[in-house]
């Protein structure tokens, strides 16, 4: 497609975004892990995402003519809706496949399903699945850009990107040096943690983890975090409290006696929140289990809660990612090998 033809004439908003972008490109063609994201990539993503955020639901024509497939083999509300809306606000055509209506039910292999979706000339395929590493594996073998929207217990990179944006906005600084982020809950089964810990390290945050031993994966301290069995101790003087949901569907059930006891020992209450710095913020990737992970009154209305702000940032961030990935200024294409 003639990119120049598609772009003209640019609206004022589009010219504004293009000016912010300054012809920059990301260093990666697929996003499967935060490990791929450099500080330069982060700066670019956040410059663009913040400006997209200002334009709210304005419909840009940047990705017109490109298609996106949302392949969600596991349940999702916010991630799927936000990827879909983000693509549509960039004028992309989108379609969705899921586990209940996919050919996987007929015995098709994962790689064949994704190769087929790619053969529709999809520019981007957003994948959520139960198997860690599956997005990375298929990314090597298809033309489309693969975006990992959560793979097993491994990673959920766009969630971490939007979370770090939320934290950076709060601090109004370039990185998170000197900031204490406490992650509370089911670390072991959490792909959100997998990406979050990687991005927080990149941004030099001090990371504490509070969870029962059964929720801590082996050698978690090698990520550069300190661990505690006491949520009070961990929260003391923190800048950010990041609560995670107990992943009952991913095997957490046998790791705690009851949600009731978990809530009493690790749930974020107003009393516990008060142990953090007065200006500390409360975050959660959703879906929240009210009164289990986070006490109900703290979820949406509480002045320290940023849970809905995270959702809003998610839209802007995903829009930035899709634009930068699909519409490269240098025109480069990814290399891959069909299986």
């Amino acid at each position, binding site marked *: 497609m003639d990119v120049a033809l598609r772009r003209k004439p640019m609206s004022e908003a589009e010219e504004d975004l293009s000016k912010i972008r300054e012809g920059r490109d990301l260093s990666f063609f697929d996003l499967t892990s935060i490990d791929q994201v450099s500080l330069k990539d982060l700066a670019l993503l956040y410059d663009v995402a913040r400006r997209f955020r200002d334009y709210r639901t304005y419909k840009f024509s940047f990705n017109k003519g490109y298609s996106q497939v949302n392949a969600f083999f596991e349940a999702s509300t916010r991630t799927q809706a936000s990827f879909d809306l983000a693509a549509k606000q960039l004028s992309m055509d989108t379609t969705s496949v899921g586990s209940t209506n996919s050919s996987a039910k007929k015995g098709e292999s994962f*790689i064949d399903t994704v190769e087929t979706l790619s053969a529709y000339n999809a520019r981007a395929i957003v994948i959520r699945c*139960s198997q*860690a*590493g599956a997005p990375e594996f298929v990314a090597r073998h298809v033309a489309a850009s693969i975006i990992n929207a959560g793979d097993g217990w491994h990673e959920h990179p766009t969630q971490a990107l939007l979370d770090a944006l939320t934290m950076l906005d709060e601090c109004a600084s370039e990185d998170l040096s000197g900031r204490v982020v406490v992650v509370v809950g089911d670390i072991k089964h959490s792909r959100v943690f997998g990406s979050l810990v990687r991005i927080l390290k990149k941004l030099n945050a001090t990371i504490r983890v509070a969870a029962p031993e059964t929720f801590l994966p082996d*050698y978690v301290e*090698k990520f550069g975090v300190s661990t505690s069995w006491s949520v009070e101790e961990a929260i003391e003087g923190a800048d950010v409290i990041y609560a995670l949901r107990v992943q009952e569907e991913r095997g957490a059930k046998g790791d705690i006696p009851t949600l009731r006891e978990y809530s009493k020992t690790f749930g974020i209450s107003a009393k516990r929140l008060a142990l953090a710095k007065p200006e500390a913020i409360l975050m959660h990737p959703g879906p929240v289990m009210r009164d289990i992970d986070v006490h109900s009154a703290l979820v949406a209305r509480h002045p320290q809660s940023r849970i809905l702000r995270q959702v809003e940032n998610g839209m802007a961030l995903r829009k930035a990612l899709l634009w930068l990935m699909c519409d490269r200024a240098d025109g480069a294409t990814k290399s891959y090998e069909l299986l």
Partner: protein
Amino acid sequence: MSTLLITNGRVIDPSSKRDEVADVFIVDGKIQEVGKHISAIAEKTIDATGLVVAPGLVDIHVHFREPGREDMETLETGSRAALAGGITTVVTMPNTAPIADNQTVIEFIVKRARELDLITIYPAGAITKNEAGSMLAEMREMKNSGAVAVSDDGVDVDNPGVLLSAMEYAKTHDMLLMNHCETPELDESGVMHEGWVSTELGLPGIPEVAEDHGVAKGIMLAQRSGARFHISHMSTKAAAAALREAKRAGLANVTGEVSVQHFALTDEECRGYNTHAKMYPPLRSRDHVDAIVEAIKDGIIDALTTDHAPHIEPDKIKPFADAARGTVGLETSFAVMNTYLVKAGHIPLSQGIALMTHKPAEIIRQKKGTLAVGADADIAIFDPDKEWIVDEKEFLSKGRNSVFIGKKLVGKAVHTIVGGKVKMSGGKIV
């Protein structure tokens, strides 16, 4: 009378403590003489100058998939792959389809092996019916049909009561009981070794304690029953320590093997979600690998095996958690031992060959793995210094799923002789 003379090779026959340059003279499929400058005239002579002449290797842990999954491997292709690796005797695990838990399947394997006339195949029968871990299989019938051991390989006999009964019954019929020691309730549906790598990759881990617990349970019951108990593919520090302690305590009925990949490679191989590195027990972290090497050096380990596990490609090009488990190994096992144990300076070549010849043969009580006068003339001739890169396209096995693909190994079989007949030469089946 058919004769074969192998001249001027470095003859390493640990069963007779021989490691010297000598000739080997074979008459009618048996070893006639081993010595310096044998002057006999033979129909065929092989000049083994600069090469190692050893007993044909004995691998007591392989999967040949026949009957049932001939698309993965057959008794024929498995045998050809064995010959390419210098292996002349194998014990096949019973998890075929149907499972070898009865005399019919054992008889089929024995008969088919005889027809093929490539290598010696000793089948292992199952410990329990359908490897389900509840009812004992007919061990006596299987033994009379040619089975040399029983094993529920692939799974532990989880119920200790059943395992104890199985040992007592196996003892009654002087049957060797091999066990895959890995307590399933402790493996948490893991797909690789639980450690830093599994945490980074976000893959469910198999904690080492699953194996430790299974090995400890097995040794305890072996002590109680007095059965000949063999621990398959050991891979952890505590498993090695438990076997060390059992031997120190004088439990002569307990033996253990290590599959060559478990002393050669670590769980780092799983990075990039490399499904060729997926196996059970899993590749372990460096501290375990080091402990296993120590146990080999100290003579605690009784045999080296491959756990040769061929798979079709579609079962390996999958997300890691969904992929089939296991690696092929027949065509690389000597080279892996030579590279990672001998060339790495851990043990002399003769010790490595002992662990792949007469020592495993003694476990299954067969007169194999020796160049003693009168023994079957099963011989492997190796070039111990040949460097090569593992290329799965050159395998004779149907399985292309090797965890060693692309790795540089040292040492390769040049000729393999079974019953005095040259069956493999220069990588080609004769």
